[in-house]
């Protein structure tokens, strides 16, 4: 049986890890390579770099970060942010990433999902989704960092993602993101019941019991968190010890 994964996510801007609280008051929290090494030692099952630099030079810096990390960290690395073409996929994978995550670009150009899956394999295509409850009792997909409503139904979108051959879905709930009151159990169950591919829970984790909650109450394969780990409130190791105590299968440190 596969272990449930704990994934720290690093937002990187111009080669530095930053953490914003609701997109405001962005703080530098350190060097991405150093942080990745630290998380690896703590037992992170995968590390996500999310490039929030929207410039061409920024991309080069990001690839250097991936290259350097891949020399010292031997768990899967996933890179997202600003990836729009098959060439971007190729450059990122060549730099040492094992997976590439796309979000807005997948919505704007769904063919990118199937093209990337065909060329590089499903295992390296991760689709990030930002979704929010709508007034029709369902969920809508947003892009551009959660700012633009695409009037796209979440249920339809996850089906399409799976049919196009994506390997995983990383589901971020705009409703719970930044609130730290726990993952969005309802939204995760909505998605997990509609697809067979692994779903990574993202957004809302603020305490250690939120990790057991998400694995006990949903079929999510992994849980992603950022600030909790960056600010040293919890280590990945502490989360895993806690989950083990709850009889949830995790990889030991």
């Amino acid at each position, binding site marked *: *049986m596969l272990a449930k994964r704990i994934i720290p996510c690093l937002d990187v801007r111009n080669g530095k890890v930053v953490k914003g609280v609701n997109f405001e008051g962005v703080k530098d929290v350190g060097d991405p390579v150093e942080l990745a090494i630290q998380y690896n030692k703590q037992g992170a099952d995968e590390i996500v770099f999310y490039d929030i630099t929207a410039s061409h030079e920024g991309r080069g810096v990001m690839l250097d970060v991936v290259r350097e990390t891949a020399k010292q960290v031997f768990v899967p690395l996933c890179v997202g942010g600003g990836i729009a073409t098959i060439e971007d996929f190729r450059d990122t994978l060549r730099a040492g990433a094992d997976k590439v995550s796309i979000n807005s670009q997948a919505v704007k150009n769904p063919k990118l999902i199937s093209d990337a899956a065909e060329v590089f*394999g499903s295992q390296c295509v991760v689709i990030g989704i930002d979704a929010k409850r709508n007034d029709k009792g369902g969920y809508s997909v947003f892009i551009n960092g959660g700012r633009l409503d695409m009037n796209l139904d979440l249920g339809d979108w996850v089906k399409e993602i799976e049919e196009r051959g994506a390997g995983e879905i990383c589901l971020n709930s705009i409703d719970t993101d930044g609130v730290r009151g726990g993952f969005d159990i309802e939204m995760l169950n909505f998605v997990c019941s509609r697809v067979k591919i692994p779903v990574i829970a993202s957004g809302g984790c603020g305490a250690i019991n939120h990790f057991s909650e998400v694995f006990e109450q949903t079929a999510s394969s992994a849980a992603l968190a950022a600030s909790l780990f960056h600010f040293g409130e919890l280590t990945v190791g502490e989360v895993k010890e806690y989950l083990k105590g709850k009889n949830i299968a995790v990889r030991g440190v």
Partner: protein
Amino acid sequence: MIAIIDYGAGNLFSVQNALNYLEIPNIVTKNAEDLRKADKLILPGVGAFPDAMRMLSETGLIEVIKEEVQKKPLLGICLGMQMLFEKGYEFGETEGLGFIKGTVELMTPPGLVIPQIGWNKLEMNEDCKILEGLSDDSYVYFVHSYAAVCDSKNVAAYTDYGGKVPACVFSGNVYGCQFHPEKSGETGLRILKNFAEM
């Protein structure tokens, strides 16, 4: 010196990064002479069985590998492990290197997704040097849809994915990991170190 065989099929640099990190001398090469001079060989691989066999055959290295494997250890990783068997059944039947008796077939785990992607536990089977020093609670990283079908005496460890799946295999000088040791944290590094120290 370990020669990492370069025949155009992926994940070479992750393997090289891991060996460099362990300070194990290595070379990425498609030169027959390098394979003859090396102490050990690694056959990596990502992609589909028929393409990989075709690419390996085009390098003209198959005969050299067959000769060298009589004298020195060879480690196949992921698709590189699958190619060690007699036949593969991905997109029709393809002949493999035939170093280990058995075939490679599509997994059909009831109720589970293909490919298996993620960390799964090693369940130790036959004693094998390559897994020396690992704890009973060792997890490694898998990405695959096909798996070996072979005799249990050639299996050093299984993993459970809707049934027993050979995770680590061996026969004489030949070793194979269905998982990616170069992406399996400390456990994976230990396996690569064990291989280097044989």
